[in-house]
């Protein structure tokens, strides 16, 4: 069981193992995943860097408290399947979270090695063992408890809904997931691009849920096709979990936002990812032809990075990020910012658009921007950008993507008014159980938090599953329990 007799000093002498990646020149011409993954040797060497802290800070940095020290020790010992089993006690989507978690703000931020050395590459290791399990055909079907006769409807098939469905199904409940789109997976499928999160990985997770008996119904917009009340009263579901994600994109409210060539990030990414517009005309849905054009994306989050790198891959000559603060304030994962830079994305920082300019035919031709400087810190502690006088200039662009966040989808609120929502229209829940103000209705993920992260959505889905199970376990399995 013991680790190889290796001193802490020796461990600290090992440099952080970078993950092999496609060459930037090559990858901007394809949509394949940027990272190629660790080899077993690289993974073991990286795992040896972990000094196995007595009181591991990393665990507290992970929103779902994965037993990080333990799974890394198993990797160091070469027990990759043991490691992934350990992770799955707390996180059912390790191949996904290992790829998309903002590790530098979570587990890796507080890793003891972070200050003097570089933190252990926890995310890379997590993803390695999950890939290893899948690629070697070792994914085991989990044990399913005997059927309880209880029926739960899950609305939305993003990470919140999938994780909630998973836990409930394993506890023996009968689960049906309703999804508005024709494809399952939520943002994991229509938002985050293939080059960052291959779709067959998401599909494999969904297939796993099908195998344990979760039913999926696509093309069903709850609120319109069927209401929550109808699900409970007419279709006899005992409980409902709402995981419908964030809603309509925000626009900036500046002149020219409706010119031809101005997109929201959601629309641009949905056209390319979900509707496969990169394959037009084999695929019927078109998208602006970026080839040799200048594209600017406004914003500094993961969505903005995804949009700008997608535009580059679609052939954009210049692909800009226009962000009103400095790089330090950018909410995107650090790795994505680095990757974007390597791919030749041009960062125009401390700049704010004030108007889009178009031609006679209403096609976008440019954007008027103003330079900003950082003023005093605001309530959030971030320094507020303020415009620099007389610093306007015109940036010639052919396509713009606005990526400044989303509001909440109004449908549930409109059709089930007794579910309490906040001023921002997010659903109000008890954070310990994810219960809403309506009996036996729970909610989690972006619809509760506003745009957040995959791991938080997943954690919320699991918390709700536990609470739903506890609530229903106390009740006899019949279909009529008002």
């Amino acid at each position, binding site marked *: 069981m013991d680790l190889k007799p290796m001193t802490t000093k020796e461990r600290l002498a090992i440099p952080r193992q970078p993950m092999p990646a496609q060459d930037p020149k090559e990858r901007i011409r394809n949509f394949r995943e940027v990272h190629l993954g660790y080899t077993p040797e690289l993974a073991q060497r990286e795992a040896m860097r972990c000094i196995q802290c007595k009181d591991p800070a990393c665990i507290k940095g992970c929103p779902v408290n994965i037993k990080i020290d333990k799974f890394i020790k198993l990797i160091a010992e070469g027990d990759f399947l043991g490691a992934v089993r350990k992770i799955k006690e707390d996180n059912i989507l390790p191949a996904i979270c290992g790829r998309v978690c903002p590790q530098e703000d979570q587990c890796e931020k507080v890793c003891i090695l972070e200050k003097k050395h570089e933190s252990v590459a926890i995310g890379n290791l997590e993803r390695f063992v999950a890939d290893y399990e899948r690629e070697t055909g070792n994914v085991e079907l989990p044990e399913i408890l005997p059927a309880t006769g209880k029926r739960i409807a899950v609305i939305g098939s993003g990470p919140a809904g999938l994780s909630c469905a998973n836990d409930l199904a394993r506890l023996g409940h009968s689960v049906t997931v309703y999804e508005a789109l024709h494809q399952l997976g939520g943002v994991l499928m229509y938002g985050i691009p293939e080059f960052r999160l291959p779709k067959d990985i998401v599909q494999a997770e969904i297939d796993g849920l099908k195998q344990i008996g979760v039913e999926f119904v696509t093309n069903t917009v709850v609120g319109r096709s069927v209401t929550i009340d109808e699900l409970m009263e007419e279709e006899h579901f005992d409980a409902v979990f709402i995981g419908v994600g964030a809603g309509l994109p925000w626009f900036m409210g500046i002149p020219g936002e409706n010119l031809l060539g101005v997109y929201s990030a959601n629309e641009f990414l949905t056209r390319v990812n979900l509707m496969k517009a990169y394959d037009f005309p084999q695929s019927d849905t078109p998208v602006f032809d970026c080839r040799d054009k200048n594209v600017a994306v406004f914003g500094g989050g993961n969505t903005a990075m995804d949009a700008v790198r997608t535009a580059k891959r679609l052939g954009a000559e210049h692909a800009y990020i226009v962000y009103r603060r400095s790089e330090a304030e950018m909410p995107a994962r650090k790795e994505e910012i680095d990757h974007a830079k390597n791919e030749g994305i041009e960062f125009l920082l401390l700049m704010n658009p004030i108007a889009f300019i178009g031609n006679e035919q209403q096609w976008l031709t440019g954007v008027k921007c103003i330079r900003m400087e950082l003023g005093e810190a605001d309530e959030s502690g971030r320094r507020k950008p303020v415009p620099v006088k007389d610093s306007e200039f015109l940036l010639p662009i052919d396509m713009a993507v606005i990526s400044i966040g989303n509001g909440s*989808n109004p449908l549930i609120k409109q059709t089930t008014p007794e579910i309490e929502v906040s001023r921002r229209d997010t659903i109000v829940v008890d954070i310990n159980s994810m219960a809403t103000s309506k009996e036996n209705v729970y909610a989690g993920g972006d619809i509760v938090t506003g745009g957040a992260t995959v791991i938080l959505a997943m954690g919320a889905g699991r918390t709700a599953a536990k609470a739903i199970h506890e609530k229903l376990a106390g009740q006899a399995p019949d279909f009529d329990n008002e």
Partner: protein
Amino acid sequence: MNNIVSAIFLAENIKKIEIHAPRIAKKRKAGQFVMIRVSEHGERIPLTIAGSDPEKGTVTLIVQGMGKSTRELNLKKEGESIHDIVGPLGTPSHIENFGTAVSIGGGVGTAIAYPTAVALKEAGNHVITINGARTKELVILENEMKAVSDEAYITTDDGSYGFHGFVTQKLQELIDSGKTINYVLAIGPIPMMKAVAEVTRPYGIPTVVSLNPVMVDGTGMCGGCRVTIDNEIRFACVDGPEFDAHKVDFKNLSDRNRMYLEEEQQSVEAFSHKCQLGQQK
């Protein structure tokens, strides 16, 4: 996959298709639409629900072949199926007893206006319908419209049938005859809707139009269907598709609908080519 229960041409290039979709058939209200994908690589396109039969579990769509997706749909026959259908989407028409309500349909817009005309009649309105087409062969739903109307008019641009002229001329005539009109619904090509809005504006007659921006998801996620209403951004798939005609920026809508002209052309060419190859076999 949803089964096509029946499919018949109403006029050249305009087909009436009945699709098995029980949940939608049960829930839909006048003014709502569905998003469909004809085939696996198809676009998601919005189509108004022209009618439904909750018992049979079917919804009826009336489709004009415009580009690739609608032409592909119009090639479908009874017994075949479409890949996806989702709905009912959009905010239902606001229906009340206004008094005298005029429903105006232009071209395939007649089909979109039809369910709302039915609902207006059921709510007790005195319903006047004006349905315009370029020429006699393109007049659709004549009998259906007559059945729900207290007064029914047909107009053709070339005078080959009914009133010779545009729907707006007929509307103006009605207004000039001293009739009190309490409500106007106008659905058709953008220039027609804009023209109707201008006819009713001076009289302050409440006028509603159904807008047809390009949509992608139709569920309030992408923001692609944004339209300008009273100088503000609104989303046709969740806030609409019906809006106050006097507040709509029609120019912006018609500009934005030109976004993919070139690509649409390309799609159609590729598609016709494929069809011809198919016929040769």
